[in-house]
């Protein structure tokens, strides 16, 4: 049985992990390399490195850090943030990324997913989409969730899969940060129209939320979260044990 994946997401700026983090036994908690190793040892199935750097110097630092991480952490690495061109794909893949996630870049350039999938294969191209309800409709937001594109989300996701996106990260702006559970309604709407892996993001506050997610929506392949892992509110090893106990396939 294929196992359900648990994916911590690390925001990286100028070569450091941002957000206050509290870990026992970890000296440098803002070192992406140290944190990636820590998560890998705890049983994380994959890591997402999100580049929130604005400057080109910071971008160079990011790729250096990615290289260093990929040399010592041997689980799949996905990189997102600032991916606007095929050259950006090339830059991070050469540094050890396995998959590349596109968000605003795919909205600005509708050919990006197709071009990248042609070059690197569908499995390499992840569509990350920020979705929020506006007047009862699922709308795609750009620029880190700040700008309503006016596009209807489910149709957009379907078009991206048709162009070659091999995986979808659905981030619900409505549930993000609330810690009240994943947005099951939104995720189900996505699962109904695509046949590629769907990764749920936004809303996880505790272990039960992951259990609910995988039980309610067997078509969801993975759960992604950031702060609850970084702050130690949910320990990945405990989460995996509980999944296994509840009959959800998990790698422990």
């Amino acid at each position: 049985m294929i196992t359900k994946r648990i994916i911590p997401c690390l925001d990286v700026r100028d070569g450091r992990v941002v957000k206050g983090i509290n870990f026992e036994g970890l000296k440098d908690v803002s070192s992406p390399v140290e944190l990636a190793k820590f998560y890998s040892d705890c049983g994380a199935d994959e890591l997402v490195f999100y580049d929130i750097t604005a400057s080109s110097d910071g971008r160079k630092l990011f790729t250096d850090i990615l290289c260093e991480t990929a040399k010592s952490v041997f689980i799949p690495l996905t990189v997102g943030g600032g991916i606007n061109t095929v050259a950006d794909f090339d830059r991070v893949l050469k540094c050890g990324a396995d998959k590349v996630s596109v968000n605003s870049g795919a909205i600005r350039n509708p050919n990006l997913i197709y071009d990248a999938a042609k070059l690197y294969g569908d499995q390499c191209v992840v569509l990350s989409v920020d979705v929020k309800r506006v007047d009862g409709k699922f709308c795609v937001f750009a620029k880190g969730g700040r700008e309503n594109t006016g596009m209807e989300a489910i149709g957009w996701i379907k078009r991206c899969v048709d162009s070659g996106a091999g995986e979808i990260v659905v981030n619900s702006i409505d549930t993000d940060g609330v810690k009240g559970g994943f947005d099951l309604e939104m995720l189900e709407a996505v699962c109904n129209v695509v046949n590629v892996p769907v990764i749920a993001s936004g809303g996880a506050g505790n272990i039960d939320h992951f259990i609910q997610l995988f039980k309610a929506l067997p078509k969801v392949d993975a759960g992604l979260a950031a702060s609850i892992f970084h702050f130690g509110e949910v320990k990945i090893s405990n989460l995996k044990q509980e999944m296994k106990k509840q009959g959800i396939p998990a790698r422990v």
Partner: protein
Amino acid sequence: MVAIVDYGVGNLFSLKSSFAAIGAEIVVTDDANVLKSADRIILPGVGAFGDAAEKLRKTGLDKVLIELAAEGKPLMGICLGMQLLFDKGYEYGEHDGLGLISGNVKPIAEVIPNNLKIPHIGWNELDFKEDCPLFKYLNKGDCVYFVHSFYAADCDQSVIATAEYGAKLTAAARQGNVYGCQFHPEKSGNVGLNILRAFCEI
């Protein structure tokens, strides 16, 4: 020394890093003489069967690999590199492989229920033959990372590990000194590193 065959297919960053992590001496090469002097050989690969097989033929590396395998040198193919070891591949037409392991590479869509997603992507449990030297450091229930839409078929004799995905898919195969892993040991954490370590000790 482990030689990783460089024939312009796929990203070798993780593979190089993982051999370095287990302390193996590695060289990435397309030079027949370097391959001949290596103790063991890794054939990597990502992409489509036909393209990759064509690249091996164009560079003449196909003949070198067949010759070295016949001499008894340990050779391991990974992912598409594993598929190339078989007789034929049926991805976008019919293509000849290296014929080092008997069998054919076919779409997983032919054998799995249609409600399952393709590619088979993620961590899956290995059901492996415990007496195979490649798995000497593994424990029952260990998982490895897969990404593939095709699988090795017609090779019952050489299967040394399977993974359950609506059907028992070939996860690893062996014919004599030639080994193949459909999954990515270089992306399978410590379990994967232990498979590479075991290969270095064959």
